[in-house]
């Protein structure tokens, strides 16, 4: 048995076939099937990852109408509960301020007696225009794009944020 193995090893290393090419048929088939399995595996990972990300979402729409401008008195803050947005009307015009705290996403509340927007979770405080007064919130509340529809209603687009100074004059 041992003798046979030895002679086999000798012919394998010194045989004319292996000298002709470094890659045998078996090695070639092994490598090409490993590559095919690798590609198929990678494809499975990509397909599954794509599958995990939903295409249709049943969430509230990001654009909404907030009614006629006459509903909001000058120097008022009105909370739109379904959309988690404050409609703030100042002497300059209208702002749409996010009610979602920039810290960890809790919903802030407008406190009319102190004229502050306060977060119940971790105590952040904001001015009526969304400017940060007290942490732990890292940033001021963002302002969303606000415009008028042709029939004279306020239209808020939560996908677009604008500068704090930008107000809609009516």
């Amino acid at each position, binding site marked *: 048995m041992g003798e046979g193995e030895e002679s086999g090893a000798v012919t394998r290393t010194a045989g004319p076939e292996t000298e002709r090419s470094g890659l045998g048929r078996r090695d070639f088939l092994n490598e090409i099937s490993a590559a095919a399995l690798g590609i198929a595996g990678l494809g499975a990972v990509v397909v599954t990852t794509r599958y995990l990300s939903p295409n249709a979402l049943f969430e509230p729409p990001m654009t909404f109408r907030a009614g006629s401008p006459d509903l909001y008195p000058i120097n008022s803050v009105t909370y739109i509960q379904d959309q988690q947005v404050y409609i703030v009307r100042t002497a300059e015009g209208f702002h749409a301020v996010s009610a979602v705290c920039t810290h*960890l*996403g809790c919903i802030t509340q407008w406190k009319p007696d102190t004229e502050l927007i306060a977060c119940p979770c971790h105590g952040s405080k904001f001015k009526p225009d969304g400017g940060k007064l007290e942490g732990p919130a890292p940033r001021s509340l963002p302002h969303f794009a606000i415009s008028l529809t042709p029939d004279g209603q306020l239209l808020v687009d939560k996908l677009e944020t604008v500068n704090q100074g930008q107000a809609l004059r009516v």
Partner: protein
Amino acid sequence: MATSTIYAASERLRATRVWKSIFRRGPALTNRTRSIAIFGNLFYHLMPAKVREQSLSVRATYYLGSISFYLFALLAVTGILLMLYYHPAAPQAYLDMKDLRFVVSNGVFLRNLHRVAAHIVVVAVFWHMFHVFYRGGYRPPHEFNWVVGVVLLLLTLFLSYTGYLLPWDQLAFWAITVGTNIISAMPVLGQPIRFLLLGGNLVGENALLRFYVLHCVILPLIAAIFIGVHFWRIRKDGGLTIPENRR
């Protein structure tokens, strides 16, 4: 004598063909056949053939790993029973949780068994980790098993976190809102991971269903595999760490 009659009857039973076909061995009459009965048992096969006497003392482990494992088993059993009454849909999930507390027979007992055991398992796993750490259990040859243990700690916490959403009450909703916002604070990958985890931009029906599947199927399966490796490696690494001065 009653005992010898029972003994003789059990020996006769062990000699039958049916018994031998199930247990692969006959009567345990000698020390050799008795030890083979232990070595060849599926439920004992993780146990070492011999252990150091020191590692059997209470102070060696306080049985913290065993306590964690038995709590995991208890959580699996009670969790499966809770699944029989729970629908992972909004707002039905909250109503089912209320039904379990007030309508289903012994539902409040099972739910609290699951809930309290879930709290205790976090404490037990942390305590186990500290105990192993202070005994030097992370040192060679136990380094790999220490890493497996850290993965199991993270799995325990993630199981705890995913289970927290399932009652679908205000506490659950805001805890998951805050928690997933912490994830989204991670640069670049944060937002996509939050979106995949919630199946959307906010904590809604998709999030509830995903957390349910993670909590009831994916995480327990991964944990069971890691627990198996963890136990196997304790044995293969030569048992517990025994401090130098006690060897």
